[in-house]
């Protein structure tokens, strides 16, 4: 068994790439999979804090590439899931310290002993993004149901097609079912129709995502969180399971009716 390399990207910044990586990796590790996360955002590393591993960093990916340490030494084991590791980005270097072939080599070295390698791509469509997709077997594009995020996602999908990376799968993040019901937010169907790629998950807007980030404990570990459930479902789909999509439209019907009654609409 050799690992599947999955790159998470978006075009626009701030749509939830890093959150998605941390949550999918944690959910896969909770399912017993061997997972390595790679932070591809050289100079702006963040995956370490989202995963709660910022105090354990000794070496980073550029140290591996430039031969200052062995690959194993840069792999930080997770606190709760011993089958999950993080390779952090360098914080003080520019993105030219890494090349696409470096990423391919590192992933190939990891493949034999890993089930999933998940790469957190930086925002944008430049060097860091190119590095992050170089080794990908599969690409997940994260977007929000919002004009600028959808537009940038479309640019990224176009580039992935031009690079013959195959058609990526879409994660619609931070969907607010109340706004969708009130026709004040693009629905999942609207976004899918606009982008024309396959859907792998819809993650509802959920305060517990921020609470999880604050604690460095991804929201998938919170069994009551709707967003956590959505990420667990995506992780199962990545493992090839057929998981039905969550019903998001009706859960807030009561709250929505209340808002209309009180004129807050």
């Amino acid at each position, binding site marked *: 068994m050799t690992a599947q390399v999955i790159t998470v990207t978006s075009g626009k910044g701030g749509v939830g790439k890093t959150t998605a990586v941390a949550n999918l990796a944690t959910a896969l590790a909770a399912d017993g999979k061997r997972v390595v996360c790679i932070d591809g955002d050289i100079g702006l590393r963040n995956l370490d804090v989202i995963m709660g591993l910022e105090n354990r960093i000794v070496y980073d990916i550029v140290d591996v590439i430039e031969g200052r340490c062995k690959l194993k030494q840069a792999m930080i084991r997770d606190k709760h899931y011993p089958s999950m590791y993080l390779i952090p980005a360098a914080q003080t270097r520019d993105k030219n310290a890494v090349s696409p072939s470096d990423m391919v080599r590192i992933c190939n070295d990891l493949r034999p002993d890993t089930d999933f390698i998940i790469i957190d791509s930086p925002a944008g469509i430049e060097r860091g993004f190119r590095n992050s997709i170089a080794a990908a077997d599969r690409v997940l594009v994260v977007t929000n149901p*919002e*004009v600028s995020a*959808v*537009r940038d996602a*479309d*640019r990224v*999908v*176009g580039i992935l*097609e031009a690079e013959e990376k195959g*058609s990526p799968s879409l994660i619609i993040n931070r969907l607010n079912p109340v*706004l*969708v019901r*009130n*026709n*004040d*937010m*693009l*629905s999942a169907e*609207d976004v899918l129709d*606009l982008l*024309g*790629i396959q859907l792998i998950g819809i993650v509802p807007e959920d305060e517990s995502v921020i609470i999880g980030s604050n604690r460095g404990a991804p929201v998938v570990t919170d069994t009551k969180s709707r967003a956590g459930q959505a990420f667990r479902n995506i992780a199962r789909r990545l493992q090839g399971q057929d998981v039905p999509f969550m019903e998001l439209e009706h859960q807030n019907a009561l709250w929505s009716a209340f808002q209309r009654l009180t004129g807050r*609409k």
Partner: protein
Amino acid sequence: MFNFFKRKQSAASAKERLQLVLVHDRTDLTPAQLEALKDDLLKAISKYIDIDPDAVQLALERDGRSQRLVADIPLRGVSRHRAG
């Protein structure tokens, strides 16, 4: 009341605006360039057939992830020959 209805349609307006923007992003063609293309096309066709330039419709349409240029060019006076 007006404000209420305006808010109601914001998702539809987002979708409409995105549909236009994405077509132009994907083809790398600005609305002005599309207009110039239309003019050139009309000039070329007019050399051979009599058409009504004001009735011509030229638009970029999406079909999944592919784009197509759709032209509707009504011809002028074709039926006259048949009738005669």
